Structures are given as C-alpha cells and as structure tokens.
C-alpha cells in the first residue's frame, strides 16, 4: 500500500548530521556503498565505472547507484564566507510524496519506525517517485530496472549478529569526525533529539511540506576572538600587538632594490 500509515508509531528513526564537524571526506558515502551493495537493496550497480567516455550505455561518463552524496557549498561573501561540507541522503520524511505517487505499492513507509523502503520485487521502474522527491534522494538502478534508496541500513541496525554498538547505519559507524548521529527523533528524550534541541538542528526545505525526519546541525559561528575558544585574556592583548600585515614600503637602498626585484 502506498497510502501513508494512518496509525504511525511514535518512533521516527533518522540521522542527525553535524555540518560544523563534517570534513567532506566522503567516507560515509563509500561505506554506505560498501555495506548496501550486498545489503537489502543489493547490488548497487555502476555504469562506465572505469571510463569517462565509454559508450556502454550510449551515454557518457561514469554513474551508478549511491544512497549518500557529499556536496560542498560556499556561503556568504569575502572574509565571512564559509565552506560547508554537506552530506545528503534520504530524510525518511513523515509525509513523503515519493511513497504516495508509487502506482504499484513498491514504495512504502514502515509503521514501526518510519523508514521509507522500496520493494524491488514490485517496482516497475517508472521513476515517478524520484520526480516526487525534492531532495534528490532516490537513484534509479539502470541494470536492475528498479528504483533504489537509502534503507537507513535496516539490515544492520536490527542485526542481532552484530555487536550492539555496531547496530547503527554504515555512514554513522564509519564517520571519522563523529559528524553523524543515529537515533529515534520521535522520542524527545533520545540523545539525538537532545542534540537537535541544544544545537538548533533544522530540517531541509520545510516549505515543501514533506516533514523530513533527519535533522542538520548548523555550522557554529566563526570564532575569531581569544575568549571565543577559551584563551586567556592576556593573549587577546598580545594579538592586538601583532602587525596586521608586513609592509616593505619604507625599504630603501639595497633592501629596497631587492624588494623590487623579488616582487616582480
């Protein structure tokens, strides 16, 4: 059934991504591919993987199915501009149109934890769900002829063959910077909910009305003053005495000549 569950449980499993910490290393995307290429939606196929101009599919460039994509943005102007690494995957929305537009019932939202999944045995590969997703989270598998998407590692988070601390999505367990968190965002007392409250975590494109579950933690304000990062006051005074930049305008004679030559 592609109607959304009317008796949705209070459990909303999702990710919290800290944009202040993410270093843009793509490890989460790589481990996602690694786990999921033999997981619930296996395999995650690639086209022209070793060439940028092969005509294998009558199309240029390498492409394939990935559930997680890492973008890098620049925001602001001049000195205040910030570089922000931005991992993007399915947000497991509460009211996802990608589910309701599905004509076959292949796309569904789980009642018990809110995870949005695709049943590859029912999918006809019409791609309409990918059109309905504002976040570009669904990717079509050209080889298998079906749509694929982030499963929140449904085959890992409940896997009793794994140690308890490993029962988190692959992207979370692999992040070397600790920028990714996993938990129940429907429970206000959970660690992730607390983190979101503390850091003013936000949802992407709220104006679309899809009510995404995943949250993003904004980059912290830039710290430029000594007291911002707990340095002693006296260091602040010292900082003021350091010349803002070196100048050679008063150099004359041999040094002046050297300066001119070296500045060429």
């Amino acid at each position, binding site marked *: 059934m*592609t*109607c*959304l569950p009317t008796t949705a449980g209070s459990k909303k499993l999702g990710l919290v991504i800290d*944009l202040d910490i993410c270093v*843009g290393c793509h490890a989460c*995307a790589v481990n996602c591919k690694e786990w999921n290429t033999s997981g619930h939606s296996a395999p995650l196929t690639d086209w022209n993987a070793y060439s*940028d101009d092969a005509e294998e599919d009558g*199309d240029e*460039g*390498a*492409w394939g*199915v*990935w559930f997680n*994509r890492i*973008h*890098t*943005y*620049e*925001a*602001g102007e001049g000195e*205040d*501009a*910030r*570089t*922000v690494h*931005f991992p*993007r995957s399915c947000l497991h929305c509460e009211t996802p*149109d990608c589910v*309701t*537009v*599905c*004509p*076959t019932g292949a796309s569904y939202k789980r009642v018990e934890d809110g995870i949005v999944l695709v049943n590859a045995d*029912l*999918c*006809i*590969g*019409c791609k*309409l769900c*990918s*059109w*309905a*997703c*504002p*976040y*570009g989270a669904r*990717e*079509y598998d*050209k080889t298998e*002829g*079906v*749509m694929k998407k982030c499963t929140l590692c449904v085959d890992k988070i409940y896997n009793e063959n794994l140690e308890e601390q490993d029962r988190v999505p692959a992207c979370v367990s692999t992040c070397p910077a600790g920028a990714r968190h996993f938990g129940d965002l429907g429970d206000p007392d959970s660690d992730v909910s607390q983190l979101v409250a503390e850091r003013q975590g*936000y949802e*992407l*494109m*709220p*104006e*679309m009305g899809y009510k995404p579950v995943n949250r*993003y933690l*904004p980059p912290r304000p830039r710290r430029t003053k000594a007291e911002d990062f707990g340095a002693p006051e006296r260091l602040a005074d010292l900082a003021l005495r350091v010349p803002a930049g070196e100048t050679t305008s008063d150099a004359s004679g041999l040094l002046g000549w050297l300066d001119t030559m070296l500045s060429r």
Partner: protein
Amino acid sequence: MHPALSVIFFTTASGAGYGLLVWLALHAALTGDANPLIGWIGFPLALGLVTAGLLSSTFHLGHPERAWRAMSQWRSSWLSREGLLAVLTYIPALLFAVGWVLLGRNDGLWMLAGAVAAVLAMVTVYCTAMIYQSLKTIPRWHNGFTVPGYLAMAMATGGLWILPLLALSGSDLQTMALPTMGFVLLSAAIKWRYWTATDNAAPTATSGTATGLANLGTVRLLEGPTTSETYVMREMGYRIGRKHAVKLRRLAGFFGLVIPIAVLAAVLAMPGSGTMAGGLVLLAAISGSVGVVVERWLYFAEAKHVSTLYYGEEFA
C-alpha cells in the same frame, strides 16, 4: 526535467486519441450518422493513438512485464488511477466501435456507450495531467494551468483529426470546425497565461532553504559530489530547453495555433467539403499535432526540479 520521448509521445498521442474519441461520440450524438468511412478510419486512429501511447510508456519502464501492478494503488497514486481509467475506457470505446463499424449503428445504447467512452476518455486525460500537476517538486507543473492545458489540447488535437475524416466522408465540416477552433484558441490562451505566470513566479525554494545555510549568505555549489553526472542530474537537470525556450515557443505557436486557425478560418469562410478543404484540414491536423509535440517537449524541458538546488541552481 529530461524530456523522455516515450512520455512526450504517450501524452500527446493518447491526448489526441482520447480527444478524437470524444468528437466521434459528439458526431454520433449530434448527427446519428454512422458513416462507415468515419468509423473504419476514426476508431483505429483514436484507439491506435491511445494504444501506441500506452505501449510506448510501458516499454519505457524498467520492468514492463510488471506493468499490470501499476493499477493497484488507485487510492493514492494518480499514475495508478490513469492506468486503471485507461483500461476501463477501452470497454465502452470498443462497444461504441463495434456498434458503429460492424453493425452500422451509433444510436440508442450504442450512442450511450460512446458517451460513457467520451467521459472516461476525458477523466483519463485528467488523471494524466494530475500526475504532473500533483508534483510539488516541479513548480512549473504544480499549478492550475496543467490540467486545463492537457484537457484543452486533447480536445483541440482530437477535433483537428476528425475534420479530415468528415471531409473524406463528404460530411459537413462547419459544425465541428467552429468548436475545434474554439479549443485551439483556448489551448493557446491557457499556454500563453501559463508561460507568463510561470516565467514570473516567485521561487518555491532556494539553495538557501535546500541547504538551510541561508543565514550565512548566498549559498553556491563549490564542489559537486561526483566528477560526472549522477542519476538525479541526468533526470532532473536538463537545461537545453530553457536555453532555446523563446524560439521553441514560437515554433509551437506557429504549428499549433497559426496554421490550424488559418485553415479553420478558411474552411468556415468557404462552406462545402471539397478535396481542397480535405487536404487543408489534414494539413491543419498534422501541423497542430507537431505544435502540441513541441509544446509538450518544452513542458518537460523547461521545468526545473527543486532537487537541482543541490547541484548548483540558486532557485526553483
């Protein structure tokens, strides 16, 4: 949006086919004339266009053999409703065709079958249009012009295609030429309003809201996630249409509006249905269909998907 030829062919061909079915039913209701020539050419043409369109959209699927499953989710999915309605329309349409072609009758119950087929045909076109209009992710589709546009263009192309059949059978062209002209003008008016409204519409979302970084300033893509194009960039990030939009709109207007209106005006001004008139209305039908195909190509190619905000677009 990437303009897939199969979808453009499906929406334009099935639109013309369903429109023609409505005009055949109108002809039956208004004249009661079960002219075999109109029936023998009209039904294969109408149902052929519809069937060819449906087959082309089916073969475009990743798993065509599972297409039947698409009729199961009519409670939530417009695509499912469209599939179901398309199949249901065949029942009265085939009865209507059998009565007219094999029994030479299109009155009484046979006419009723035609009326039911006409209503279902328009409901099917409505469902097709709703597939696009319901997508909040594509602002150029998610507005009140999509459904009226699809319905008016189905009626206009259907009307343009019944005129050559009427000319061939020596029937009067005037009765059908006037309302067809009305639908051609209505289609053009809707399209004109659609273009002016969507060209000047405020953005639905921006790169700032997509990333949530708007408070830091203008958000620009510094580095994409891949060195070549992803599925999302291939499917949603089509730019060529926007580049040539003005020229293509003129072409759509020339073939879809100017030529058909000129021919219909000539037919209305000079009563009778000679060979000359027959040739002219056939030309108008072909030209009108070309115009609608160009329009439909633009409808896809000009549409910007909000997911492109993650790939460098500033607003959508």
